[in-house]
């Protein structure tokens, strides 16, 4: 399976995949479009992994696989790019913040992390759970179980600490989702293939709930090796879910700038530990073909 281009999971060209998007979303597909794909391919996309809110009962299977994957990643040698610490080092040394690359870089980071978890947990249906801090403003109880690999120290938040509604509450989040301009919602422009870790300014998701939750959890989460804390991945998954809400569910357009679409990331490895290259354009399609959120509806 070539993970460099997620749609190639299904043996499709990009053109076929875009046609499939209409089919999967129920957007008025005709027989000619259906003929472009096998039934197996269509079913695989329809049944792509469902990312669920971590406090729901439906997430229990994925939590168990997540625990299994973390244990396996920590047991890998440092020479393996999938090693837990090596994965955190990717963020420490390569992350993109404070620009319009914040969303796609972290989406790709989570996508490949999810592939690694699928491989190492032996659960090909694994979907990374997300922590909806708007609905559940306390660190979920699964992260306080000291016998679980989801437990991590240090954190400055306690089990009873409650995130401020000024930063994560529904009123604040709705206000951010109402912003129609990508450059304000996501962040300002950078040049094609810009590699700076800190860009020219924050977008609204990053500067408010994203940054706040990092600081709220504290400890390792309030640093650039924050992925060492398993809560990081579920936090950023919520950030990704907000991008899906804004772009796909609410139908706001990302930028049309080729500098954004064509920017490539070379920082990740696939489920087998092989280095990969991925462009922003592929990250935009991921929620249609590689995974879905339980809030995504028919999209």
């Amino acid at each position, binding site marked *: 399976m070539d993970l460099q281009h997620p749609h190639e999971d299904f043996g499709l060209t990009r053109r076929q995949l875009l046609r499939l*998007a*209409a089919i999967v*979303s*129920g*957007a*008025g597909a005709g027989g000619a479009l259906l003929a472009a794909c096998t039934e197996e391919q269509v079913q695989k996309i329809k049944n792509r992994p469902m990312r669920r809110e971590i406090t729901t009962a439906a997430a229990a299977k994925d939590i168990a696989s997540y625990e299994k994957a973390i244990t396996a990643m920590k047991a890998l040698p440092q020479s393996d790019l999938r090693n837990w610490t090596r994965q955190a080092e990717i963020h420490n040394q390569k992350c993109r*913040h*404070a620009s319009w690359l914040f969303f796609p870089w972290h989406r790709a980071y989570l996508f490949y992390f999810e592939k690694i978890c699928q491989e190492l947990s032996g659960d090909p249906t694994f979907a990374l759970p997300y922590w909806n801090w708007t609905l559940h403003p306390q660190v979920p109880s699964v992260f306080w179980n000291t016998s679980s690999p989801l437990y991590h120290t240090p954190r*400055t*938040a*306690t089990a009873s*600490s409650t995130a*401020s*509604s*000024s*930063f994560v*509450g529904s009123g*604040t989040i709705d*206000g951010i*989702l*109402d912003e*129609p*301009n*990508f*450059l*304000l919602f996501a962040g*300002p422009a950078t040049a094609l293939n810009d590699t700076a*870790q*800190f860009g*020219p*300014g*924050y977008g*609204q998701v990053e*500067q*408010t709930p994203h*940054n*706040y939750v*990092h*600081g*709220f959890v*504290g400890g390792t989460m*309030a*640093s*650039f090796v924050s992925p060492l804390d398993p809560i990081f991945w579920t936090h950023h998954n919520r950030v990704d879910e907000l991008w899906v809400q804004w772009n*796909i*569910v*609410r*139908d*706001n*357009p*990302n*930028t*049309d*700038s080729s500098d954004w*679409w064509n920017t490539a990331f070379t920082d990740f490895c696939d489920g087998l530990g092989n280095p990969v290259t991925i462009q922003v354009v592929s990250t*935009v*399609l991921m929620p*249609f073909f590689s995974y879905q959120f339980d809030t995504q509806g*028919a*999209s």
Partner: protein
Amino acid sequence: MTQPTDQPTTEQQRRVQRGGRTTLETRKQIRGQVVTATAARTVVQFRGTADLDEQITQLGPDVQPYLVFTVAHAKVLSDVALVVFVDTPDADAQTPVTSKGFAGSVAFFEHDGHGQAPFRVPLNAALRRIGARQNDLTATFAPVALPGRSRGRDSLTINAVLHLTRSKVER
């Protein structure tokens, strides 16, 4: 304001593929002056803005006010969260977000060594709630304590500029 859609459309698929032409063009900047700086709040005043609505109108359609700012602070206070209010000079961390003047909130962490980018908070919604104004615009920045950390006893150094910016999205 955009509204959620029940079902995606073919047009939506095209948009997701191609995006839209999004532009931000700042047409006027007004630098703020710090008039109060305590541990509880920093208040910044923007002189010559009593007629802000009129200035915005004169700058053309789609122009909106944004507060663009950076924060400098004592090194011991590595993690900072702020709530921001306009025309509410007495606001502090306890002022509810339901206050008419609440404009937004921002946070940052471990910026040492990674630089710090400017924040940008839109003011349109708060100014609409406040309604008619007769005095210069003020912005109040109130630090909020994070779990396990004190808010700090030093005031924050805020460098704030009011941007009047044309924001446009073409699909």
